[in-house]
């Protein structure tokens, strides 16, 4: 697996990250950029990513160990991004960027919803990253994958498909083995059926949220990363998530 993503940091980064041998926390944002997200929703998402990036840079504890990768599904297929750069499929570069150097992509919305393929790519890059880290003697906390969508999985022609069901047993096993925490969040006008898909993917951390509260969503990911760094128990993550889910601001008591 790692052969597709060998541990090649670009030369200008290699010197910077060489010294940091903190335990890492890989975080994947797996984002729906299909046509239904066009207009204000994608703009809201872009703005939220910019704000969140600033907060991430300012947080010395998170920026010490979090690494961010972005996966999108829209247009003609799926894409992994290294910060603002989309990577060519099979490019020999890891999409994970240390939090303090992360800058967000500027996303557009169009095309189909290859949600299943995007989740598979997310799992793949997480597994590859783990292999890279281990080979360097570096440890990692449990990675976080955050799936955000307002729709239903489609095939490459934009037709609804049930192929997502092939993922359910895989995800179940991966989460049972604690290989990552999967958050599956439905936004905007997601349907009951869409919500069912998310519930099947992420039985613990799924939600259907009114509107497009991407800022709160990303803050919830930071709060979870914080809890992970602290070594919190499952109940803390569930609490953080339920605070987000009920759409009360995270700071309200």
């Amino acid at each position, binding site marked *: 697996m790692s052969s597709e993503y060998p541990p090649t940091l670009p030369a200008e980064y290699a*010197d*910077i990250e*060489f*010294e*940091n*041998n*903190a*335990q890492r926390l890989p975080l994947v944002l797996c984002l729906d950029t299909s046509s239904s997200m066009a207009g204000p929703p994608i703009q809201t998402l872009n703005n939220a990513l910019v704000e969140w990036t600033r907060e991430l840079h*300012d947080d*010395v*504890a998170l*920026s*010490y160990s979090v690494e961010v990768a972005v996966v999108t599904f829209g247009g003609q297929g799926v894409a992994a991004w290294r910060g603002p750069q989309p990577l060519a499929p099979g490019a020999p570069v890891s999409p994970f960027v240390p939090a*303090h150097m992360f800058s967000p992509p500027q996303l557009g919305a169009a095309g189909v919803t290859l949600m299943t393929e995007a989740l598979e790519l997310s799992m793949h890059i997480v597994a590859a990253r*783990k292999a890279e880290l*281990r*080979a*360097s*003697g*570096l*440890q*990692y*906390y*449990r990675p976080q994958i955050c799936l955000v969508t307002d729709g239903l999985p489609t095939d490459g022609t934009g037709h609804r498909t049930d192929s997502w069901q092939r993922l359910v047993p895989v995800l179940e096993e991966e989460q049972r083995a*604690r*290989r990552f925490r999967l958050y599956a969040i439905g936004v905007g006008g997601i349907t009951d059926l869409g919500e069912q898909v998310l519930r099947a993917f992420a039985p613990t951390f799924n939600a259907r949220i009114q509107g497009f509260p991407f800022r709160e969503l990303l803050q919830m990911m930071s*709060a979870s990363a*914080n*809890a992970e*760094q*602290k*070594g*919190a128990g499952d109940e*803390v*993550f569930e*609490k*953080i998530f339920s*605070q987000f889910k009920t759409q009360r601001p*995270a*700071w309200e*008591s």
Partner: protein
Amino acid sequence: MSGRTVFLDGRRVTLAEHPLKGGGQAAVFPVEGDDHTVVKLYRDRPGPDQERRLTRMLAMSPLAARPTDASQPPELAWPTALARGPEGEFLGYAMHRFGEPGHVQLVGLFTRAQRLRLFLDRADWRFLLGVSWNLAFMTARMHHDNLVIGDFSSSNVVVDANGFVTFLDCDSIAFTDPVTGEAFPCLMHTTDYSSPERQAGGPATRASDDFALAVLVYQLLTAGNHPFGGVPHESTSESTVKDNIAASVSYVVRPELVVVPRGTVDPSVLPPELLTLARSAFGPGVHAPAARPSAEAWLRALDKERAQVRVCPARPLHTYGSHLPTCPWCTRAATTGHDVFNGPRSVPVPTPAPPQQPAAARRFSPLVGVALLVALLLIILIVAPRL
């Protein structure tokens, strides 16, 4: 926009709408019109024991007898008032604000990028040694006052530009009320700093503080390396710092057990006495709390080194222990191309190099001067093409 209104000792204050920091248990808010105070509000209504704990704490003034100079912030962000709602219900407490940019979490000293960003040209090894001393002093003082830190980590201690430290989360400290005899345990911990008995659910003790202190001091003196880093050769795929602590696997004591993280600073940058303490803490001390060096032992050993720090003539921000014949940071820069303290662009381009000398001469040269010169040459040879 304003947030909620709370009462501090009956005084009505308005909190900012957004917290400075929110965790799973509580969030910390600035107070409008008062830059020196923050209020910590619990997410779930705190119980009567928490209210009693804070009330008792207000009656205590630990470390108060310690003479400090005017530039030194208090070592504890001790509660200053209870925070109550309009009905008098207990919500949290107020404390002095120790925020950025003046006060930075200890973890900000653990990577070069953050050190340079947050401490500019201050955070060299001498500074890290001084912070270690302050940390050991704070711990020893708290133990002397019968306080157990309990949740001791790189996130809940802040350090200022002079290297003074302040412990933030005082409401989790374990102590016994001297008047009533009621024991208030510490219910929080941070796994990367938790001794095995804490991980297993045991109570916070001085010995568990001593373990966390040893890890933090080691991290400071190696510019950020966790002594329980590294992936054990025979581990399952999800091995973590926590697992290495539980299994007593530290490369400082037994490097043969793990794939040592690449880029790890050699433990020998610690002066011998400090390295001996570290090896006790990360070897026999892992499973035998009594074998861990106390905060006082750390303090004594750190104290000896403070007066003896050497300054490298070759590069800025290079200071090191007197036990070393040459600058370890120059040696490392020469062999790896990586300078732990200086950014790749902030170092001036050295003058062109005279003919090269064999690298092998460097390490074994009996003459410090020659060794320094050779190290400098190597830096020039290795770094120059990169600039």
